[in-house]
Each structure stands twice: as C-alpha cells, then as structure tokens.
C-alpha cells in the first residue's frame, strides 16, 4: 500500500481491489453484535476538518472507533484560506501530540497534498475531500457499492468493474466526487460518461479517461449505474444554467427517465440530495437508489483504508510484485 491516500488517481487496480476486498471483510464486523476490532488500539487519529461536513466526519469517526483507535476531532471552520498559516501550524501541533494519522477535509484543492509533502508532518494523510479536487474514499465507497450491486457481494471479491458503464450527471466542474470517480472507475476498467450542461464541464476535460455527453436521455439506456452529482442552487445565479426548471428538465432524474435505464441499473447519489431539481422523490425513494447503502458502505471503506494504511499490512501473496511505486 501507499503511505498516504490523497487522490484516487494514485491507486493502482490492485490497490483498489484490495481496498474493496478488505472493506467486505470490514463490513462483516458491522453485522456482529459487537462492532469493534482491536486493530488500531493505542493509535491516535485526528479528523482535521477545515470545512464542515458532518456526514463525512461521522463516517470516518465510526470507522476509526470500530477499529479501536483514539479519535481527536479538530474543526477549524473556514479559518485556513484567509489565514494561510493555520494549516501548517495545526499540522505541527498534531505532530507534536504524536498523532498517528490525519484525516483532512479542506476547502482548498491541494491542501492534503501539501500537508503530506511539505515536511510539516510525518503521519499518513488521508484526504477526506479537498476543494474541487479529490475525495478518494467517496470514490472507493461508490465503487464498492457498484461492485456489490452489479456483480455481487461474494462473487465480486477480487474483481474490478471491467466493462461496466457508469454515467455521472451534474456539476462536474465543481465536483471532487466526479474527479475521484472518473479516475478510480477508469482504473477499475469501467467505461465512464459524464453528462452535464457544457458550462459545468471543465475546460481540459478532453484529456480525462471518459466520454462527455450533453444528452442524458441518449446515455441512460446504456448505463449500468447513474450517479447524480450535487448541483448547488447558487450556480444558477452565476449563470451556469438559466433556471432550476430548465436544469431539471434536461439533467434531472425522474421516474420517466429512470424507466429508460436497463432493468438492473442502479441510481447513486453522494448526498445530500437536492430533491426536485436533480432527482425526484420517486427516484430517490425507489429501491434502485443506493444512497442509504452508500452511507453504510462508507464506513466499511474507511475502515479498510485506515486498516491498510496503519495496520501494518503484509501482502497476502508476497510472490506477486506490486506496482504502486511508480
């Protein structure tokens, strides 16, 4: 395994499959009466959140506690971008306190990378979402959810997502979830299509390993999974699209559209959902929608990542050389 988890692009196929397989093992812990493993007993993990995200923080915290780690929650709401020093200062404070790993969420793209590479801190760094850059554990939990639903919980072990067709819909431009998913799904062999109004697709997307379409209806019949991305209503005021109604007419997912998807296809959403605009209640509440499972799977994935980065992982098959060095 690598030392830090900053970007989904840093994961090899074997790394990613190993994390998904490990997460299946971790998921079994959740099915037990006592949902705890002693693996990280005596280790201290800090959740360093410069940006509010109760969902992600609670998910990491649950994962850490199930692995018996000691948890420090540090919220430095919004202070960093205006006063640049605080990230470095905070990091060094944590280092002095002997923290064994840092889970960081930051509104600035690249902040976790800086933390991991600037020599401010020695501990492994796990990116819990940075600006509009990356959110690798989200991509892993999404891939985990897809593998379970599209291949199967036990039959999926050891497998990637080769040949699966995944469609991401919505605000790609501002989405770290989209970036992470494109990277990881490509690594896992899936074919990814982005669907969004052209204003919400970044300049330079042509080098990404995916297709881009402006026609949701054309893509739906060929999709094994459709992931709806968050669209903030504020984007409308910044002229990314004319009106909420027009957005949902062209890019929203309602029951009629869902019916165009293949029988087995699932609907995903990283949450929280903006009901009405990007997804109708009918779709959100249907059993094809995996939002609730994604939340549960998030804990398993984060346990797997923490376990592999901190648990002194030894390769099960040392004869197979691994390639994460490049």
């Amino acid at each position, binding site marked *: 395994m690598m030392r830090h988890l900053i970007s989904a692009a840093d994961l090899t196929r074997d790394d990613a499959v190993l994390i998904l397989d490990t997460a299946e093992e971790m998921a079994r812990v959740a099915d037990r009466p006592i949902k705890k493993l002693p693996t990280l007993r005596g280790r201290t993990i800090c959740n360093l959140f410069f940006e509010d995200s109760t969902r992600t923080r609670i998910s990491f915290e649950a994962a850490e506690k199930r692995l018996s780690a000691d948890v420090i929650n540090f919220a430095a709401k919004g202070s960093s*971008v205006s006063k640049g020093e605080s990230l470095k200062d905070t990091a060094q404070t944590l280092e002095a306190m002997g923290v064994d790993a840092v889970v960081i969420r930051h509104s600035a*793209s690249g902040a976790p990378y800086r933390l991991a590479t600037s020599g401010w801190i020695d501990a492994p760094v796990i990116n819990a979402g940075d600006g509009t850059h990356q959110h690798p554990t989200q991509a892993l939990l999404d891939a985990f959810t897809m593998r379970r639903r599209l291949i199967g919980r036990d039959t999926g072990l050891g497998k990637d997502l080769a040949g699966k067709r995944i469609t991401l819909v919505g605000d790609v431009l501002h989405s770290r979830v989209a970036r992470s998913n494109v990277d990881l799904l490509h690594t896992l062999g899936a074919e990814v299509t982005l669907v969004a109004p052209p204003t919400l697709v970044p*300049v330079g997307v042509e080098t990404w390993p995916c297709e881009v379409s402006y026609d949701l209806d054309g893509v739906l019949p060929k999709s094994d999974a459709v992931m709806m991305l968050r669209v903030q209503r504020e984007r409308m005021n910044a002229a990314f699209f004319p009106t909420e109604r027009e957005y949902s007419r062209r890019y929203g997912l309602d029951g009629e559209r869902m019916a165009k998807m293949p029988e087995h296809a699932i609907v995903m959403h990283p949450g929280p959902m903006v009901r009405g605009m990007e997804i109708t209640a009918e779709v959100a509440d249907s059993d094809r929608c995996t939002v609730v499972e994604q939340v549960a799977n998030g804990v398993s994935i984060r346990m797997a990542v923490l376990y592999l980065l901190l648990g002194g992982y030894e390769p099960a098959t040392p004869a197979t050389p691994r390639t994460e060095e490049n």
Partner: protein
Amino acid sequence: MSKILIRGAKVLGGEAQDVLIDGETIAEVGTGLSAEGAQVIEAEGQILLPGLVDLHTHLREPGREDSETVLTGTRAAASGGYTAVFAMANTHPVADTAGVVEQVYRLGREHGYCDVQPIGAVTVGLEGKKLAELGAMHDSAAGVTVFSDDGKCVDDAVIMRRALEYVKAFGGVVAQHAQEPRLTEGAQMNEGVVSAELGLGGWPAVAEESIIARDVLLAEHVGSRVHICHLSTAGSVEIVRWAKSRGIDVTAEVTPHHLLLTDELVRSYNPVYKVNPPLRTERDVMALREALADGTIDIVATDHAPHPHEDKDCEWAAAAMGMVGLETALSVVQQTMVETGLLDWAGVADRMSVKPAAIGRATEHGRPVSAGEPANLTLVDPAYRGVVDPADFASRSRNTPYEGRELPGRVTHTFLRGRATLVDGKLA
C-alpha cells in the same frame, strides 16, 4: 573618481575589446588600451552589455518592508546586472501622488545600487475609478513616464481610454495588466488540462487576450501608446503581432518565468509556482520565445514580486501570487533564448536594456557601449553553470521557482555611472 579598464570583454557578444571607464562615463572603447592609472578587470570570455533595465519590478516600499525595500530590491537588481528598475505602483500607500513617487525615487538615488524610476498608478488607489494625478507625478522630481495599476487591470474601457489620451501630453505610456476581472474570479492557475485535473480555479487565456485586443484598438483610436505587461499566451502574441502590423503603437513584455516554466509544475501544489498571470502551457512558452526573438514582444521584464516565507509556506489557495526574478532573469534568458539560438547577445542587450529604457524614457540607460556614454554596464560570464540557491539572494524574499535548478551564466560586475555596484559577483 578613478579609472577602470575592462579588458578583453566581448562587447554585446561581438569582438573582444577594452573599455575604459573614466568617472561616470565611458572614455574609450578599443583594443590594446593603456591601463595606466586604471584599475584593471580581466574580462576575457565575458560578455559586456549595457546595464540591464527592468520595466517591471515590485520593490514593496513603502508598506511591505518585510518583503522588500528599495535598498534590498536595488541590491538584488545590481546582483542581477540591472542599473535601472521601474518600481510598480502597488505599494501601501499606492504610488498615486507626487509625494510617494518622489520618496521612492530619492531612496533609489541615496542607496546608489540601481536607479529607481517609479511607475505611477493610473487610478487613485488602484481602484480603477478615478484618474490619479498623472501630470503631477510626471512633473515631480521622479519624472514619471510610465503609469500602471499593475496587480489590477484597468478594466473600465472609458477610464483606459482617458488615461491613454491624457498621458499623450507628456509622452507617457500606460502599462496594462491585462486581466478581465470577471473571467478570472477565483482564478488560481492557467485554465486547461492541468487545472481541470487539480480542481483549481482556472485563469483562461482569453481573459488576457480580450483586454489586449480592446486596448490596442483603444490605443489606435486615440493615437496613443500602450504597453502590455507580462504577456503570457500564444493568443496574446497573435494580437500584438496583428496590432503592430497595423501600425498601432503597442509594446509588450514577457517575464523570464513565462519563457521557461509551464503549468505542469502546479501539480506539486507548491505555491512558489503561483504567479499572476499564471504559468501557461508548453505551446505558450514556445510562442513567447519566438515572439521575443522576432520582436513582436519587445522586452523581458522580471515582474520581480517578493513575498515573505509565510505567504508561500501554506496551501496553494492561501498563498500570495508572485516570484522574485531580478537575480535570475539574465540566466533564464541565456538558457531559453541564447542557448536555443533564438537570440544573440546583442539581441539580449536590446530586449533587456535598450528597448525597456526606450519604452520608459530612461534616457541615461540602454545606451550604446561607446565613448562619451554613461558608464552603465554589466559584465556576464556565460560559461558559468550553477545551481540556484536562494540563500545567496540579496533580495529580502526568497520565493524563487528556480531553487535547486541549474541555470547558466552569472553576472560578475555591474557598473552604475562608473561605480561598481557588483564586483566578482559580490555587492560592492
């Protein structure tokens, strides 16, 4: 003042000659000149250039003396081979009155390392609303001829038009920081393949190009002269080339870093590469080099932008924009322009001394290396190879993108009106 004989230097990269300095002026240029009564500098293999002139320097004084002062900035300039620098107006207070520009001008003269020619703000407080007292700044002891709101774009077309018209009365020039503000809201780096991947706000090339296009048309319409600061895109080159072919009185500058570095470096998220305008693509870099070679871009200007360590030792989004450049400019130009065969040393003298002096009307600088001229000179050892170590900098700030990089060439001596400000690479 004593006599100095520079022996055997290649003047503008040409034949080896002796140059005799007597007092503040060049007394004689020739071969086999007598060394009698003169201090001799053996300069075999070295290149003698007119003292370099930087049309775009940030000295930070008054207001941000923790990053640079007129003293430390002019010492850095002398180290880099400069004998004159134009100091940008975005200080605190802003250089928008005769009082501030005179203070900066006098400090430069007092310290004696490099002439400081203040640039006046175009608008009061750089706010883009109301013209600053351009005439009073011109009439002051500082004799301001270049006006710029650098750091900000004069984006209001009417204000820009009026400024261009107004400075015609005293032969001034407006130097534009071309950045359409709405197109660059939240911009962190060049918009393109790398920004898409890194999730950093994009600074599109068109934000620069649209302003340049507008301003050359305005300059044409009112028959004035406009200078484009730190031009950074291939598209900007095309527009300036077109404007010049049409006879519009436009000049343009490129920075050393835009001749060498690309936005690929931003993948490190190291804010030392954060600069405005941002580092662009390889294609842009090549277009800029060619445009500097063919004269479409007139000059090299450093945009020397000192920042204290703490303003760069942080996450990318929080970091200040800018790089120091005075002490590495000539080396970067040697690597990107001379060693690629695009420009000879006479061309370097033209782009880094003669033309910038002409644009800024610095009449004592950028002069020919011949008898009777002011002895503003720079001696360069082009064979030198060394790794950049910011600890050696005279600048108060160390935010260089070249740390650890090998660059060719080294300024060994700088003379300001016959007085050595740099001797054997050490400040005098």
